[in-house]
Structures are given as structure tokens and as C-alpha cells.
């Protein structure tokens, strides 16, 4: 029996992985070959999807990107024994793209069967939780604090401090909420971990619940990820069946359960207070802070709200110790960041590395430049609320503070490449348009400002009082940045301001034409 891995990851399925798996099974049966097909997560080399992996004595040999039409020739080439074929990329772990990474959060993603508790445990799963049960609540919080882990959702708030705040609240109902409303364009790390290693997220949530004294966890997942919802629900069911969720988990005396909730297409629900409102069954309207969710969160109870990646990293920190994680990275950005490389890109995918890698190295060396082969004009880092950065800033190291110093943010770690055909004035307009569509409407700067932003950029693009309107737009951005309640209105100016600053010529095109 040969073990074959074909990803169930949504990106792999979008490139034909389901049809491929069916074709491989059919061809194997027709040839009388004994195979076991495991639907794994993606390894993150997304340009090679669907990537078939075959278990051989030398290691797992990869073939990709494989199409249904390649199946017969793969069998002819003896791929079940790792045979030579134009799609053969060699042993996957030895691939240069994999070798250059430091996989911490994603160490099991793409390697294991995502919904098999046995496979998870065979790869170090639940070791961190067992240790957490031994050391107890305050030691867990201390360990998470010492690791230097910061919220991977974008804000970068120290996770340990958040946990301590909730743990210090008087005993009673407390909640663990995971923000899986990954709406930023160019990001897919939450989706990948929930499809490829969902039990790590569940384990992180149990550890968190144990640390803060909460017995209930919710995962709020966006509805645009249907495959993710299916896989994660299967993982919850598997964990419960194996006794890792429910009452008296593995004899610890601790009760904890996880429930998956699916959002309904509102980007703003990725903002933590809006998410809590939505979980409560209300309109996803942002709450004013304070009070912080740590004090008054879900249903008014103390609540930890963490991003998927932060929570999925917790088991490793408990397993290997805080110092192991804190030793990675630079400055106040400790550990690793799963970079998501996307857009007009040659080698797109998930690349986990220590903080501090220069932006240009990511764009040119790791990503290999653009798919169209044209020069890179801009990179948007951190989703629709992130700044557009030009080539002149490519020496910027990837860390929270270095980016903040240049009026930009690393956000959730997504990078979208654009080639030289992009019109930055149009992208600035789109940024404002998106904010107008998704604004929850509670505060005026965001609700009205975004629409006025679209109108003003339209005037600029038409060449109407260009300099005067650019000044007006800058003033509007300032108002939105400092007057909005949450990061949607507050950060929507980042792409606009950065486009104005780094690509001024794109806003003056009609004026230039008129002058000629």
C-alpha cells in the first residue's frame, strides 16, 4: 500500500485537487495498484498546487502542479516509487523554498492528515496541552508572556498581557474567542492552518481556556471559506470523540468545548468588538473601547479574542518553552511570521520565517518577482488597510516597529505584488470604495469620509483642481485616521496616503496630459 497525499486545501481545490484525487484513485484501481490517498493541507508552495506527494523510503516525493491529464503519465513513470517525471520536484522537505523557512506555527501543515487525532499526536500534538495541565494557569500565562508572542491579526498586541487581564478577572463565565474572519486581501494563513492543522488551533484554545478559567470557545470563521468550515468542524468532532474536548478532558478535571460559528460576509466583523456583536446575534457594529473585551467581552463576560495564528502557535510555545520562541526574530518582534505572498507573483504561497527579513528579499528572492514578468511597481503589505510600498523601501526589515516607522503596517502578514501597469490612483480609490462598502456606519469619519474619499479621488483622476483636491484628500485621511472608532476607518487612509506619497505621478496624469 503506497501512501499518496493530495491537498484538500481550498487553493489546491481551486486548481483542481478534487478532480485529481478522483482521477488518481480511478487510475490506481484500473491498474490494480494499492494506494491510500490522504487529503492533507497545503505545504504552502501554492504555485505547485495541486501537489501530489508520494511516500517513498527516501522521503515524500512531490509532483506538481499536477492535472488530471498528467495522471496516466505519472503512473507510467512509476511515481508511486518516486520515479522521474517532468513534474517531479524531488523530496518536498529538501525543496529550496521549504529549506529556507523556519516552520514553527506551520510545522505540521501539509504534513499530517488534518482531521486525524492519531496523526496529530504522532507529530507532537497535545504535548503542549499536557504540559499546560501540569504547570497550571499562572505559569501558562507567564510562559506566553515571556515568549513575546504578539497578536498576529494585525494589531500586534502582546498575547500574554491579554490573557493575564482575563485570568485576573473574578471567576465566573469567561470566553475564548478566535478571530478567523480573515478578510484581508492577500492573506490566507488562517485558512491554511484551519484546513491543514486545525487541531493545533483547538489545542491552543484549550490551553487558553485552562489558563483564564473559561470553559467555552468560539471560532468565528468567514463564510467565504466553505471548505475550511467543513474541515474545522470535522476536526472539532474528531477531538471530541477522542476525549480532547468535552467534560473532564483526559482526566484533568477541566471542561472545555469549541463551537464553530460562520459569519455572513461582513469585513468589519474581523474587528474584534464587531465580531463579538455578531457572535451575540446583532449587527456587526463596532463597540467603543474601553471597556476592553478582556473585561467586558462576549455577552458582557471577560473574553480573550485572539487571531487564529496566535492561538495555533500557543501549543508549540508550551511544548518547547517560551525562550525557544523568544530567541527568534528581531527587536520587539519575536518569533516567526507566516508570510503570505500573493497577487501578481511568480512563486506565491505561505513562507514562514523569523521576523526581520528585508521586504526586497521577500519580493525578489522568495517570491521571484511578478507572474507577468514585468517590474514590481508596488507591494501592498497588510491587506486593504495596509500601505503600498515602492521599490525604494525594499530594504525595510519585516517587523512591526520598522513598518510602523514608515507609516505602514505588517498586519496579518499578507503581501500583494503589483507590476508597473497598476494605476495607483485607481487603487487608492478602490481602498476608499471598499471602506465605504464595508463600513459598519457607527462613526462619521469612516461612514461619510470613505464616500467623500471616493468622490475626491474621482475629481483628481478627472484632472479637476488636482492640487487643491489632493490637499483635501490628505486632510480627509487625517480626519479618518484620528477620528474613527476602529481600524477600518482608522487604517483605510494608509493605502491612500502611501499611494499619494510614493506614486504622486499617478494622481497627476490628466493634468500632465493637459499641460503637454
Amino acid at each position, binding site marked *: 500500500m503506497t501512501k499518496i497525499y493530495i491537498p484538500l486545501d481550498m487553493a489546491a481545490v481551486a486548481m483542481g485537487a478534487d478532480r485529481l484525487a478522483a482521477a488518481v484513485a480511478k487510475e490506481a484501481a484500473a491498474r490494480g495498484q494499492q494506494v491510500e490517498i490522504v487529503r492533507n493541507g497545503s505545504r504552502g508552495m501554492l*504555485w505547485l*498546487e495541486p501537489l501530489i506527494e508520494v511516500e517513498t523510503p527516501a522521503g515524500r516525493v512531490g509532483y506538481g502542479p499536477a492535472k488530471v491529464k498528467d495522471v496516466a503519465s505519472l503512473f507510467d513513470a512509476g511515481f508511486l516509487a518516486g520515479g522521474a517525471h517532468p513534474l517531479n520536484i524531488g523530496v518536498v522537505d529538501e525543496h529550496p523554498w521549504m529549506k529556507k523557512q523556519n516552520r514553527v506555527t506551520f510545522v505540521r501543515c501539509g504534513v499530517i492528515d488534518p482531521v486525524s487525532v492519531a496523526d496529530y499526536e504522532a507529530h507532537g500534538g497535545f504535548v503542549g496541552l499536557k504540559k499546560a495541565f501540569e504547570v497550571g494557569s499562572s505559569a501558562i500565562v507567564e510562559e506566553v508572556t515571556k515568549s513575546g508572542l504578539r497578536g498576529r491579526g494585525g494589531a500586534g498586541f502582546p498575547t500574554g498581557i491579554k490573557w493575564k487581564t482575563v485570568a485576573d478577572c473574578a471567576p465566573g463565565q469567561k470566553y475564548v474567542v478566535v478571530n478567523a474572519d480573515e478578510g484581508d486581501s492577500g492573506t490566507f494563513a488562517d485558512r491554511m492552518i484551519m484546513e491543514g492543522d486545525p487541531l493545533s488551533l483547538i489545542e491552543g484554545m484549550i490551553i487558553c481556556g485552562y489558563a483564564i478559567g473559561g470553559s467555552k470557545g468560539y471560532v468565528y470563521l468567514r*463564510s*467565504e471559506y466553505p471548505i475550511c468550515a467543513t474541515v474545522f468542524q470535522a476536526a472539532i468532532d474528531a477531538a471530541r470523540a477522542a476525549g480532547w474536548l468535552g467534560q473532564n478532558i483526559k482526566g484533568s478535571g477541566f471542561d472545555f468545548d469549541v463551537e464553530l460559528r460562520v*459569519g455572513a460576509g461582513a469585513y468589519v466583523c474581523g474587528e474584534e468588538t464587531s465580531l463579538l456583536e455578531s457572535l*451575540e446575534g*446583532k449587527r456587526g457594529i463596532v463597540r467603543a473601547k474601553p471597556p476592553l473585551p478582556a473585561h467586558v467581552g462576549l455577552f458582557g463576560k471577560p473574553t480573550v479574542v485572539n487571531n487564529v495564528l496566535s492561538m495555533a502557535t500557543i501549543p508549540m510555545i508550551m511544548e518547547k518553552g517560551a525562550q525557544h520562541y523568544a530567541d527568534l526574530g528581531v527587536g520587539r518582534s519575536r518569533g516567526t511570521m507566516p508570510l503570505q505572498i500573493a497577487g501578481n507573483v511568480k512563486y506565491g504561497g505561505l513562507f514562514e520565517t523569523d521576523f526581520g527579513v528585508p521586504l526586497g528579499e521577500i519580493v525578489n528572492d522568495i517570491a521571484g518577482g511578478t507572474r507577468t514578468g514585468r517590474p514590481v511597481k508596488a507591494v501592498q503589505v497588510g491587506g486593504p488597510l495596509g500601505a503600498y510600498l515602492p521599490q525604494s523601501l525594499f530594504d525595510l526589515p519585516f517587523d512591526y516597529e520598522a513598518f510602523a516607522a514608515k507609516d505602514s503596517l505588517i498586519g496579518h502578514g499578507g503581501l500583494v505584488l503589483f507590476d508597473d501597469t497598476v494605476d495607483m490612483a485607481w487603487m487608492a480609490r478602490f481602498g476608499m470604495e471598499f471602506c465605504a462598502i464595508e463600513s459598519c456606519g457607527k462613526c462619521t469619519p469612516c461612514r461619510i469620509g470613505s464616500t467623500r474619499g471616493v468622490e475626491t479621488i474621482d475629481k483628481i483622476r478627472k484632472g479637476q483642481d488636482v492640487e487643491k483636491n489632493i490637499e483635501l484628500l490628505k486632510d480627509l485621511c487625517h480626519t479618518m485616521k484620528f477620528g474613527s472608532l476602529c481600524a477600518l476607518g482608522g487604517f483605510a487612509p494608509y493605502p491612500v496616503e502611501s499611494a499619494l506619497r510614493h506614486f504622486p505621478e499617478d494622481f497627476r496624469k490628466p493634468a500632465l496630459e493637459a499641460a503637454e
Partner: protein
Amino acid sequence: MAGAAPYNDERAREIIAAHLGLEGPALPILHALQAEFGCVPESAVKEMASALNISRAEMHGVVTFYHDFHSAPHGRHALKICRAESCQSMGAEKLANEFLARHKLEWGQTTPDGSLTVDPVYCLGLCAHSPSALYDGEPIGMVDAETLDELVQEAKGK
């Protein structure tokens, strides 16, 4: 959506009742109603308001806040084309605009035969395979004009 049942109050009440044990049951109920009936009509909103003991105005506010829920049935099939930044970097805006023009549609509209509704979506998390789309929940990476036109034909046939 394909296979949606015609709306009836009794079935709606059953669906609502099945979720009342949950904390904050509104979204799970709305998803279940829409899965059953293909939409959340005004009468279902009324039933929900009564079951959750909130005003109809408040319930109406919740339903209309979320892009996913709609009060009248959509086409039998659903096509969502991503127009977020990553997909735009690979020409999604032009692709979508030309597609809509070719089929004489605007965003959110349904083809005259009721077979397909086309909506924009802001990121499907398939950003290394831009541009992308979702057809009845099935993801499509590196989508092109030809594939989109095929989907229109496929929707017609069913």
C-alpha cells in the same frame, strides 16, 4: 440556490426552534433559513423576532447588515467574482467588467432566465492564484473569461 424549498412559516418555526439552545442564535438561524429556502423572507424575520423576543425592526436591522442574507430568492446558481486587491493585481477588474458587459448584467443581478446570480466578493483567500471566483461554493483559481462564460452556460443547463 439550487434545490431551495418554497417558504412556509411552519418549517421556518421548526428551524428557529432547533437553534434556540445556542448562545446568540441569530446568525446560525439565518444561515439555516437561507440554506432551506434560498433566502430569508420578511415573514421569516417576523418569526425570528418573535422567537428571540426582540422587535421586528431590530431583527430587520440584523438581517440587512450582512451581505450574505437576502430577502428574495436569487438565481438557481451563484457566481462570486473576487474584486479585492490581489485579484485586481492580475486584472480582475477588467475581467469582471467585461464579463458583466458581455452578459448585460450588473453586480448583484440575476440572468433573465433565473439561472445565475453574479455578486462581487472581497477576497476568497486564493490570492496566490488570482484572479479567483466561487461557483456554488466551488473555488476556481486563475479564472479567465472563457471559464466564466462556461459557467453561465453550465448554470443554464440545470
